[in-house]
């Protein structure tokens, strides 16, 4: 008898919750502000197990800053940073996206978010003049790691000047627990001056059309993740990286020298590949990789189209600190 | 003395009534319309009623009929809900070809109810100004057809734009909700 009552309770409760969620639309969802971060940091994993109405606010800002030491470039950005902020939401969330264009901008801007199922990925409804704001909403239907970028004509120019970032949609059940998460976007810059020449560089349309960049970098500048800005982890920690590649032209062959990726969520989607040395990130795409930091040392992040790493700036460093493990890796004697 | 006082009062009253509309009301636009009966009126004569507006042209064969059908669908709900102060106004994008006679014929062909509907035209310059104020884009193509935004615009009684509804969108829930507040 007790057994059948328990069944009945579970039965009725599940119907109750089913009908509750059936009737839920945007206005019934709890409204929260998105937690966003600038690269290379990632917002914390999502703890809630229910959908929410998430408010995201971006501002487009045109500004001059360093592409390399002593090298300046006039960037177009989301919130003054290249890449823009990492936004983290949950599958099933309704996102209210507000785009403000700083009044000192010369250009109109908009946004195409690859997670959006809708015209232009949002670009059609977010075309914003300087000083104005556009707002649209979308539902995060698919989990994954998604590029967003400005899509105002001429689109390649808005991308080439720095307007991109990542939006992560966690699946309903969430992501597995890791100890560290990082956010990177690889991109190219087509400058009129040669790589490394000091001063203010301009955009070279000729080089862009020929797909001949002077700079290929992580996170918007040479050396963004080296020396004092290196990524860090401790031995034994599980590390996850959200890595995007916006191009605008090149495909990335992402590799970390000295590390094998335990898991690669191919193209940022749900297909999980294992034990991968180098993974391809399409232009306008992303990947999610997970690995364990097994031994200490400096591990170099590269695009393994290797001239880009050595001659165009596409290197980063992951510094792993901790106890050596001679069984996994040791230096033998030299003769 | 009394005459002077009356004149000053008149001027004050008149100037106040001219500036009676909020600064974001389209009735601040000083332009004349001609309706389908040939009657000349000021744009601000449309005030006092909630206006559901669109800009179309009678030679338009593809989208404009859909916009008008959607406006009629809204009208059916307006009647069901017994809203009293809703008008439907269409302004021609093509004043050169849309004469008063053509507008009148179009009105009859579409069986529009004159207690709620009217068709208007104005000068080419004022057509542009009105479209600009309403946020309607349009372009005359080489084949004399017009490419234009398919918007249905809702103005409150004071002429403030309250909603841009996509003209092809058959989901009127938010439109009706707004009309119930404005009526």
């Amino acid at each position, binding site marked *: 008898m007790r057994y059948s009552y328990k069944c009945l309770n579970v039965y009725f409760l599940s119907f109750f919750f089913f009908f509750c969620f059936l009737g839920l639309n945007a206005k019934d969802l709890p409204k929260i502000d998105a937690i966003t971060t600038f690269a290379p940091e990632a917002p914390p994993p999502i703890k809630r197990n229910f959908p929410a109405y998430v408010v995201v606010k971006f501002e487009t800002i045109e500004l*001059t800053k360093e592409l390399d030491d002593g090298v300046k470039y*006039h960037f177009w950005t989301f919130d003054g940073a290249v890449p823009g902020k990492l936004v983290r939401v949950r599958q099933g969330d309704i996102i209210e996206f507000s785009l403000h264009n700083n*009044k000192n*901008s*010369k*250009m*109109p801007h*908009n946004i*195409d978010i690859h997670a959006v199922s809708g*015209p*232009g990925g949002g*670009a*059609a409804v977010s*075309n*914003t*003049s*300087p*000083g*104005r704001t556009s707002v649209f909403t979308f539902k995060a239907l698919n989990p994954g790691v998604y590029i967003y970028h400005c*899509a*105002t*004509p*001429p*689109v390649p*120019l808005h991308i080439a*000047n720095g307007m991109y970032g990542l939006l992560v949609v966690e699946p309903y059940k969430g992501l597995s627990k890791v100890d560290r998460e990082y956010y990177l976007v690889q991109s190219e810059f087509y400058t*009129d001056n040669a790589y490394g020449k000091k001063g203010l560089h*301009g*955009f*070279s*349309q*000729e080089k862009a059309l020929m797909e001949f960049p002077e700079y290929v970098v992580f996170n918007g500048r040479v050396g963004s993740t080296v020396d004092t800005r290196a990524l860090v982890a401790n031995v034994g920690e599980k590390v996850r990286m959200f890595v995007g590649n916006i191009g605008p032209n090149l495909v990335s062959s992402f590799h970390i020298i000295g590390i094998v990726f335990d898991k690669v969520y191919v193209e940022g989607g749900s297909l999980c590949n294992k034990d991968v040395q180098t993974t391809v990130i399409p232009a306008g795409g992303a990947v999610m990789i997970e690995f364990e930091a097994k031994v200490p040392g400096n591990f170099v992040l590269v695009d393994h189209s290797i001239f880009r790493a050595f001659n165009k700036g596409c290197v980063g460093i992951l510094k792993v600190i901790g106890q050596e493990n001679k069984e996994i890796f040791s230096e033998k004697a030299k003769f | 003395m009394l005459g002077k006082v009356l004149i000053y009062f008149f001027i004050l009253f008149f100037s106040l009534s001219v500036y009676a509309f909020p*600064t974001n*009301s*389209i009735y*601040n*636009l000083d332009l004349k319309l001609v309706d389908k009966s040939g009657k000349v009126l000021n744009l601000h004569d449309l005030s006092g009623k909630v206006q559901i507006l669109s800009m179309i042209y009678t030679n*338009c064969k*593809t*989208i*404009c009929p859909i916009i008008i059908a959607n406006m009629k669908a809204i009208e059916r709900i307006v009647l069901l809900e017994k809203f009293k102060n809703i008008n439907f106004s269409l302004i021609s994008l093509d004043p050169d070809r849309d004469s008063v006679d053509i507008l009148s014929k179009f009105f009859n062909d579409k069986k529009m109810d004159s207690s709620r509907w009217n068709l208007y035209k104005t000068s080419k310059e004022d057509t*542009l*100004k009105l479209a*600009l*104020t309403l946020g*309607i*884009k*349009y*372009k*005359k*193509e*080489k*084949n004399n*057809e*017009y*490419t*234009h*935004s*398919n918007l249905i615009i809702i103005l409150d009684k004071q002429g403030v734009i309250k909603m841009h509804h996509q003209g*092809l969108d058959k989901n009127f829930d938010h439109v009706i909700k707004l009309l119930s507040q404005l009526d």
Partner: protein
Amino acid sequence: MFNFYILIFLFFNLFFSYVKASDKDMVLITSGEYTPLFKYGDVSDSSKVYVKSFMINKYPITNLQFKHFILNNPKWDLDKVGYIFADKNYLSHWENVDLDSISNYPVVNVSWFAADAYCSYYGLRLPTIDEWEYVASAGINNPNGRDEANYLQDILDWYINSQVSKIVCINSMTKNYWNVFGIHGVVWEWVSDFNSVILLNTDAEGGGLEELLYCGATATNAIDPADYVAFMRFAFRNALEANYTSSSLGFRCVKNVG
């Protein structure tokens, strides 16, 4: 009595000289053809557009000229213009600034309505997109700028590598083949029919118009997808509303001839 008539005579001269102020600094643009960014008409139509002769202001309208216009038309003064005609940043660069120091700089933060009112007051009008683009398609020495090396790259440099604060005064502007100064790289400029730019799917090359969504739409594609500066101008116009103002948006006027 005679002195009185002289005074009246001088007064009218002064008045009409203000009225015609904008007329003096105009140049003739002779009729011709240019290739617009987006093709008009069908596949079989020519991609070139014919533009009739007209006169155009040599320089963008300056702060001083606009101030004179307001003196004669006080309803366009900063505090008097309603939101429907100009947004809250209307002439905001005049606040707390000595106008003499910016008198010869292009007036900005003016809406389409304000620009249109200015031109109308002087018996002029805003240029159409075709007229403006026709003048702008000229190089320094050629009516067709594409015939000059680095033409597109130079304009691109001005647009994207300069800052808003570097708007130059009319004395520093460079002229093109038509003796029109500062047509590129100074400020964006209002055109009368900016609202004819209907870009639907901006991610696609040039923006396509779908027949089903717009009456009389003809499928358009950009004729030269490498003309980034033309794209930028079209994208800018596409995002505008008539009451918008911007610190990098000014105007100049045109007049019909013949």
